């Protein structure tokens, strides 16, 4: 019997190798464009994200159509004219927490980190480095980050007519609670 227990323990131990990932389907990603003419904000509460606490790999995936705007017409313009969400339905970030050694996933606390990787939107991929924090709270890892994105970098065309209503740099805020898997 002892051997069976041992065997089960070993099998259990094997499974534990995979229990190092944190994941969510309901992460929050929002953005804000501020100009003297108009402020535009949008929020997406359906961001998918996985963090591998062992390797530091982190990914985000969001459906462009899931961004909600205060004004319905803005949402339509965002999808139809700027992000062309029929053509480019998803935006992705694939990267790595570069200073993972700072984070102790066994201990609750807030850790300053940087994630470096590739951000893809509107069919264009760019290397980015994003400063943020990982807050460990029991079986949860909360990812917070704030960074700026230039629409021009991602070939998002803004016609001169509305140039002064859309900021040159859009502020993106990430606030996602990931659960241990």
């Amino acid at each position, binding site marked *: *019997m002892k051997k069976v227990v041992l065997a089960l323990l070993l099998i259990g131990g*094997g499974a534990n190798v995979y229990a190092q990932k944190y*994941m969510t389907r309901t992460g929050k990603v929002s953005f804000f464009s501020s100009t003297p003419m108009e402020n535009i904000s949008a929020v997406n509460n359906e961001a998918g994200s996985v963090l591998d606490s062992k390797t530091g790999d982190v990914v985000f995936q969001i459906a462009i159509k899931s961004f909600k*705007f*205060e004004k*319905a017409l803005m949402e339509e313009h965002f999808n139809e004219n700027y992000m062309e969400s029929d053509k480019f339905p998803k935006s992705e970030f694939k990267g790595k927490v570069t200073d993972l050694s700072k984070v102790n996933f066994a201990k609750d606390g807030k850790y300053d980190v940087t994630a470096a990787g590739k951000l893809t939107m509107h069919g264009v991929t760019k290397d980015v480095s994003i400063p943020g924090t990982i807050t460990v709270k029991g079986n949860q890892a909360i990812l917070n980050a704030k960074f700026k994105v230039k629409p021009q970098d991602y070939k998002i065309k803004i016609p001169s007519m509305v140039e002064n209503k859309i900021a040159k740099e859009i502020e993106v805020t990430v606030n996602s609670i990931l659960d241990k898997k």
Partner: protein
Amino acid sequence: MRIIPAILLAASVFATNAVSAQDGKSKKAKTEAEESDDLMDMLDEEDQGSATKKKPYTTATFKTSRLVNGHSIENTAKGVLDFKVNHRFGALDGGFSNFFGLDNANTMIGFDYGVTDWLTLGFSRSTYEKEYLGYVKAKILRQVDKGGMPISLSYYGNTSVQGMAAPTLPAGQEYHFSNRMFYVNQLLVARKFNQWLSVQLMPTHIHYNLVPTTAEPNDIFAMGVGGRFKLSNRVSINAEYYYRFNELNGYSNSLSLGCDIETGGHVFQLMLTNATAMTERAFIGQTVNQWGDGGIHFGFNISRVFTIVKPKEFK
């Protein structure tokens, strides 16, 4: 019996070792990109597994709630008030003395309101026969991207009242209020084939409580066909044709060609049409001008939206 746990143990030790060995080897072989791909796959798997996954409904089949004269499958978004000002001018063949028809105009002023994302209510007043109209448009089926429901289906219905002075009738005869009323029932069946092309069919029934002459039926049936072709993200060409199954002398089918131009907060719809009225009972059933005879009219619809109730994320 003793052998079994031993085999199990051996097997599990072997298996675990093998897994970790493989793990170690593949770690080295794998590039960082591949590792994050694995994480992406994990998201995708979860995606497919979850029953609560949202259906990817097709959006923006048309730019606005009107195709040209008639309605499109698009509803006004929840909590949004759409203020519409539409004009149809006189016939182009009026020549320079009538400024190619621009001296005369039929006007419609109306409000559409999105009660929910699937129900729009509207009210309007038109110049032609001083008509007041109330309508309801409700989504029944919604097209889904990539497999699933291939079409969107909506019901559109209106009731309208013309406000002309009552005719002088012989003594003892009464002109009932109901004589002024019209009813329209329509189904809108649309499919967005790709981001450039959308097509719509509009089977229509119209009831006139009172018709001008005894030769005219009180109920007419028509089939509308229309579509839009996008020239760019902000400009599209639209067309709309209504074929009446009850053919009547003096009336013709309405054909309209339009162009949607979208600016920041407005959608302009410019058009050429042989219909001068803007209510369904009039432009589908009672259009008198013909394209062939130069009875072509320039017109436009302007739409301005106001957000009355903010989405829940912004309350």
